[in-house]
């Protein structure tokens, strides 16, 4: 199928997933009720559920799923490493450290925005630290050093988080562990706006870097000879993909696998041209996370006795990994280059 065909298909899928997402949930609604509520008619309570709970949550799934996939695809080109994903450079460690500290200090009980703010701050500290280590005196960034620095900084923050958890009470530990597996349950319009504010501009600039990212895939020196401003592209790609990830993590926790599996699946389907790969990864990630979120809150009926949803990170792994393995298995047959392993 041509890239345009995929784009249309995925856009339609995104709209359907969005509508499905606001229809399904703990309170089952009919399509008629949903449509009435979207027009601002019908039952007041139904309208409230849709406008204040489900719609922001569905929008958040689109933003975060698209953002994580886009950012994963960018990191794979930047680091020239198919194993790269949005959290590889220590963002999840930094964010988790921030979030857990806020939880342990009890800040989250009184201030609703304390957790995302602390997580975002932790992620920013990790990003700046990694960048500082990886840039040489002449401000050139060595991506091999970037990768090592990111992994090590991430490990350090994870250790710090483990320490804080080890001296916390059981309730804090449980909240922290659930946060780390990710959830869209706390999405409201203000958090949606915050994520959109950070991620949409970053996403647009990253999309415009597609051609330079293609060049980076064939090596920095050759990329330079083909007109890429290599150092600037690396810096901008790193900072923006990191911000995109940090905004998502702050709002929804550490949702794994999306940023690794979705870009690779798209690459296996349409090839490695980033001009196609980046927008399709965003769309596919948005669809994937929206569907995963629907599963997360419908797979077990929520009752008063078991009021928790399945963590969305568990769903993305349980559904995403087998899907990805099927794609991978199929690709081994018809291509020599699979997109994983160079």
């Amino acid at each position, binding site marked *: 199928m041509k890239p345009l065909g995929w784009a249309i298909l995925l856009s339609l899928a995104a709209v359907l997933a969005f509508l499905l997402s606001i229809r399904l949930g703990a309170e089952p609604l009919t399509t008629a009720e949903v449509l009435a509520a979207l027009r601002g008619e019908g039952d007041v309570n139904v309208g409230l559920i849709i406008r204040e709970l489900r719609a922001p949550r569905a929008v958040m799934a689109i933003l975060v799923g698209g953002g994580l996939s886009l950012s994963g695809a960018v990191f794979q080109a930047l680091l020239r490493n198919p194993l790269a994903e949005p959290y590889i450079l220590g963002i999840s460690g930094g964010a988790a450290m921030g979030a857990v500290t806020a939880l342990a200090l009890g800040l989250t009980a009184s201030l609703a925005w304390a957790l995302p703010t602390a997580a975002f701050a932790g992620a920013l500290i990790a990003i700046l630290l990694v960048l500082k280590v990886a840039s040489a005196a002449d401000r050139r960034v060595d991506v091999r050093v970037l990768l090592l620095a990111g992994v090590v900084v991430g490990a350090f923050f994870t250790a710090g988080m483990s320490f804080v958890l080890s001296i916390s009470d059981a309730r804090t530990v449980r909240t922290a562990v659930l946060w780390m597996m990710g959830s869209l349950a706390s999405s409201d319009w203000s958090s949606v706006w915050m994520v959109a504010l950070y991620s949409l501009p970053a996403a647009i600039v990253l999309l415009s*870097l597609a051609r330079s990212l293609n060049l980076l*895939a064939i090596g920095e020196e050759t990329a330079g000879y*083909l007109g*890429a401003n290599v150092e600037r592209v690396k810096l901008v790609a790193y900072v923006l993909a990191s911000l995109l990830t940090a905004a998502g993590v702050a709002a929804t926790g550490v949702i794994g696998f999306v940023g690794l599996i979705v870009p690779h699946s798209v690459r296996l389907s349409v090839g490695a041209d980033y001009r196609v790969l980046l927008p399709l990864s965003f769309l596919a990630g948005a669809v994937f996370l929206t569907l995963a979120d629907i599963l997360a809150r419908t797979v077990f009926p929520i009752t008063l006795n078991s009021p928790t949803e399945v963590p969305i990170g568990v769903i993305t792994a349980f559904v995403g990994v087998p899907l990805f393995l099927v794609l991978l298995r199929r690709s081994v047959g018809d291509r*020599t*280059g699979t997109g994983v392993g160079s």
Partner: protein
Amino acid sequence: MSTESPGPAGPEEPSATKVAGLPNKTEPTESPALEATELSVHYPAAPTPALDSVSMIVPNGSFYAVLGPNGSGKSTLLRALLGMVSLSAGRAHVSGRLVSQWDRRALAREVGVVTQSESVAFPMTVRELVAMGRYPHLGALQSETPADRDAISAAMRMCDVEELAHRFLSTLSGGELQRARVARAFAQEPKLLVLDEPTASLDIRHEMEILELLRISADDGMTIFLITHHLDLAARFADRLLLLDRGEVAAEGGPGEVLQEETLQRVYGWPISVSNDPATGLPRVTPLSSSR
């Protein structure tokens, strides 16, 4: 405008028209394609400089070959001329303009480069690789125009990779990949083509095809800067040779001037005989055995 003025601040427009059919290598009316003025490069932590005060001029439309043993500074000279390493001293000019003043995209429209090797991180077809040669001609979101597609197919035809268009790079032989990379440089439609040992992995036929293609391009007005280990072939195809030895210029000039027995023996540290090849009438370099 009386004498050739390789002045560093030569204000002549690099785009001054190159009239087809007029051999401009005898009468340089514009700045030289490449010019090094006492160029030195010292890599950090290296005991000796990689390039030590090298001066040279590559006239427009000439076929210029750079020779020298491994580690003599050939690739460093290429990187220094094109602004890819920091200079410790000296100046490098491309088409009369300091290389540091070139915008990289504009430079990529002027100069096409085939480096020694590259590794591709993701699966890519030959067509996709060659199409990258058009990137410096396109805006960030602009797609290929018919002119771009023509340049791509012409380059693929010239380098004999048309039949490989939809093959993945990972399935190619070393020689096929090399031809695809040369095709990408031609797709850039540069005025100057710089190649670092492009025929190292090619068989006789494909090596000769590439060299003849380079010669024809030079005759058509393109400037060729070729790094090679093939002394005989350099003598046969190039107008001028530069022989580097441990970062310094050992000899520079026409093939007959540079390929001297005594010079080559000193530079390569090996007994060498230079004779006249009856088949081509050009110098033939024969390495002798070490016992001699």
